[in-house]
């Protein structure tokens, strides 16, 4: 039963996931942890960490959530549900988008999406760094990650690695 629920919910999220996976992270955390209780807050951040550290598109984090909920079928269903509806849209819209290259509506939509995506990604970062009650140590590590990314051109893996070391020392 939870497999069907998971699939339908992720499929709905797929349709609104402008900006990709980072945009839907706060919602996944809310639904999977707060509403359904399938994962604890700390399990969620750990699944996220594994998904970030492994190679590949970060949407694969959804397969880890599916795995926790219902094993291997859960992993397939979660990933498929998150990708398929959006893929259908991409399939249809790609050519349409070219055809409306000079339409004022296209330009308006492009400009409109940007602030929404920024708001969602910011929320995702905040929610992930705040599992349960606020913890200054997690906020400090997140702040270092953010500053490191903005101030340097390091491969993000180095920043994740630094986060791991800080985690071992502080947590």
């Amino acid at each position, binding site marked *: 039963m939870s497999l069907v629920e998971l699939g339908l919910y992720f499929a*709905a999220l*797929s349709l*609104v*996931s*402008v900006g*990709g996976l980072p945009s839907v*992270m706060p*919602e996944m955390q809310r639904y999977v942890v707060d509403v359904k209780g399938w994962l604890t807050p*700390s399990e969620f*951040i*750990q*699944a*996220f*960490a*594994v998904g970030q*550290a*492994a*190679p*590949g*598109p*970060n*949407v694969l*984090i959804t397969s880890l959530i599916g*795995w926790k909920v219902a094993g291997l079928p859960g*992993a397939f269903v979660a990933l498929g549900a*998150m*990708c398929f*509806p959006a*893929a259908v849209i*991409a399939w249809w*819209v*790609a050519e349409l988008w070219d055809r409306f290259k000079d339409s004022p509506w296209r330009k308006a939509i492009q*400009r*409109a999406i*940007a*602030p*929404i995506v*920024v*708001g969602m*990604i*910011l*929320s995702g*970062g905040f*929610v*992930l*760094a705040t599992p349960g009650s606020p913890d200054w140590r*997690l*906020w400090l590590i997140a702040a270092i*990650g*953010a500053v490191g*990314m903005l101030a340097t051109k390091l491969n*993000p*893996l180095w*920043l*994740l690695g630094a*986060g*791991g070391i800080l*985690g*071992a020392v502080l*947590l």
Partner: protein
Amino acid sequence: MSEARETPVAPPKDLRELFSGFFWIGARSFGGVLPWAYRTMVEERRWMTHADFTETIGLCQFLPGPNIGNASIVLGKRWFGLAGSIVAFLGLMALPFVWVLGLFVLYTDLSSNETLKAIVTGVGAAGAGLFIGTAIKLGRPIARKPAAFALIAACFVLVALARVSILYVIPVGLALAVFAARRKWL
């Protein structure tokens, strides 16, 4: 790109080459897929030009869904139709799917170890920081306009603090944002 003059750009010859290209992107994309997609498709295999790549990724960033996943759908369709989309998508996901699950199973086995748990939690917090950094990078050029700043702030308050579902926030927010953009407020 200086190499652009060396070999002409040509799409993959067949589905096999399409699969192996995307498989290779997925296989080595440590620390983010986009740079590897660029290296593979533009620099090494010369399937497309720099401009074409930028344009396609730009489109995929505006569509819902994973950017690079969408790119596999769009490019697969352009070159080989439906079969191309399916093959490119599966190629991209195949190995990373196995890796991420394998790593997670391994981690779950070992997660009674408190130090390891602390390390992984730290990695997660740093990953959250990368999100915040990305938001600042994308937001800085647009947030000077009051309407854009208000939308960003409203999204944050509703989603991060009040924990309202994005199934409501995104459609309503987009409608307001398109309205604002049509009035030249964004």
